[in-house]
């Protein structure tokens, strides 16, 4: 079982190793300036150094502190935004008129670059207050979550609804036993997108200013100080957190919907 898994991942690992090697060779061969593109080995060395700082009891790693802060902003915004997206969808879908009236606005709002509001949120909540970043993340993830949840709650097979009607089921039972399970795949596909969006939202919002120990600020400061190995290490941290977040949501999805088409094993 475990071995089969490893074999599945082998191509991915091979691609990653090849890309890193090619990158390293390219930088060496063409003698690329390190402020344009540092070598992967330099980035890993910096990363290892930061891990050392982080593990040492009497040292501080600003990188890890920054990662933690940004992580919590993303998670906080994700929970608030996705939670209220699902909640609002549940409430509005109960009254078709409301959901039909609000959906066009939600869809329109979903195509607005909400990140542009980051400076305004900084003014509202204070630039060093994590709430300003959480607010941006929450707004970014709210709309896709709400839209997908409303879809999942309403795009129900007509026969299944007739079946429920033939049992004289109450609207609450139809919601619990049919609409919500039907919506789960829609909700999770929104959550997966939202997990990636929330980290992007948090980091980009920090580009507009924030406390010193956050990834966005760290990246801008190290880049302007021409310490590109540091900047790239921070980018790598952001990527690791983003992928980790995504995989966590995916794992939760497998737990909650083992029956779903995408997870079936013959």
């Amino acid at each position, binding site marked *: 079982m475990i071995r089969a898994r490893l074999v599945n991942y082998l191509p991915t690992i091979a691609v990653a190793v090849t890309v890193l090697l090619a990158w390293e060779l390219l930088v060496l061969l063409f003698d690329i300036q390190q402020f344009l593109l540092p070598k992967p080995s330099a980035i890993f060395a910096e990363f290892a150094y930061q891990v050392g700082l982080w593990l040492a009891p009497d040292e501080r790693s600003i990188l890890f502190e920054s990662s933690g802060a940004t992580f919590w902003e993303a998670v906080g915004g994700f929970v608030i935004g996705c939670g209220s997206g699902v909640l609002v969808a549940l409430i509005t879908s109960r009254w078709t008129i409301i959901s039909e009236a609000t959906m066009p606005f939600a869809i329109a709002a979903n195509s607005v670059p909400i990140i542009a509001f980051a400076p305004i949120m900084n003014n509202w909540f204070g630039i060093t207050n994590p709430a300003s970043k959480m607010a941006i993340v929450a707004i970014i993830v709210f709309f896709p979550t709400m839209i997908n949840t409303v879809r999942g709650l309403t795009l129900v*097979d007509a*026969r*299944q609804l*007739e*079946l*429920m*009607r*033939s*049992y*004289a*089921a109450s609207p609450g*039972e139809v919601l619990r*036993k*049919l609409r919500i*399970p039907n919506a*789960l795949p829609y909700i999770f596909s929104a959550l997966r997108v939202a997990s990636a969006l929330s980290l992007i939202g948090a980091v980009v919002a920090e580009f507009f200013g924030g406390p010193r120990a956050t990834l966005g600020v760290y990246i801008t400061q190290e880049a302007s100080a021409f310490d590109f190995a540091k900047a790239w290490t921070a980018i790598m941290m952001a990527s690791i957190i983003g992928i980790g977040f995504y995989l966590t949501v995916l794992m939760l999805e497998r737990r909650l*919907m083992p*029956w*779903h*088409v995408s997870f*079936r094993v013959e």
Partner: protein
Amino acid sequence: MNAIEAQGIHKVFNPGTDEEVIALQDIDLQVVAGEFLSLVGPSGCGKSTLMRLIADLLQPSGGELRVNGKAPAQARRDRDYGMVFQQATLYDWRSVSKNVQLPLEVMGYAKAERVKRAQAMLELVELGDFLEHYPWQLSGGMQQRVSIARALVFEPSVLLMDEPFGALDEFTRERMNMELLRIWQATGTTVVFVTHSIAEAAFLSQRIVVMTPRPGRITQVVANPLPYPRDFQTRADPAFHALVTQLRDLLRDAVGASDNPRKA
């Protein structure tokens, strides 16, 4: 007592518009309690519409309809009937046993009772070994047996089946026909069975209602002389062939007649 009584039923879709369809006209029909009755006819003759009227999923445009002596809406609230469609329409997220328990959950049965009944019903449809399987792990015929178990688990007095075996291959279908007769005899349920297969109707039912389209009407109700129990030898019986021929002629005449352009 009559399980179903229809008098002068009309159903018009989109009345007064360009898309007006007279789906049913002057439907008079009595279904005796415990009877196995089939509706046959080409597609578009209103078979499904009639089923949906009985099930209170549609309202008639005119006429009088009673189910167990009650208005269809009341019969629905009293859970007097179970339904089986052409597609099994099982819930993907529920195991076979949980699918069968669904109506019982809605109707407020206690858990122990639900589990017991679902198991008994699934044993009746010979799926006792598949309680914890999921629908996607079953063949089409097995899925349809689950949906029959689900329709019967709360012991409705009427079973409404709309082309339940239409999507199955010929062999599976014949096996399912035998099984359905066995279940019908074991439960004593009234069965209203829609099909567009003449042979299936002739094999299964006590009476066959022949319907024709544009507008949907009952052409004739044919009594089936074949005795029960019916088995693979029934299809070889000369009486079976005579019945199939009679039904085919009825349908051909009627469809031919309605195909003549005869606009009012």
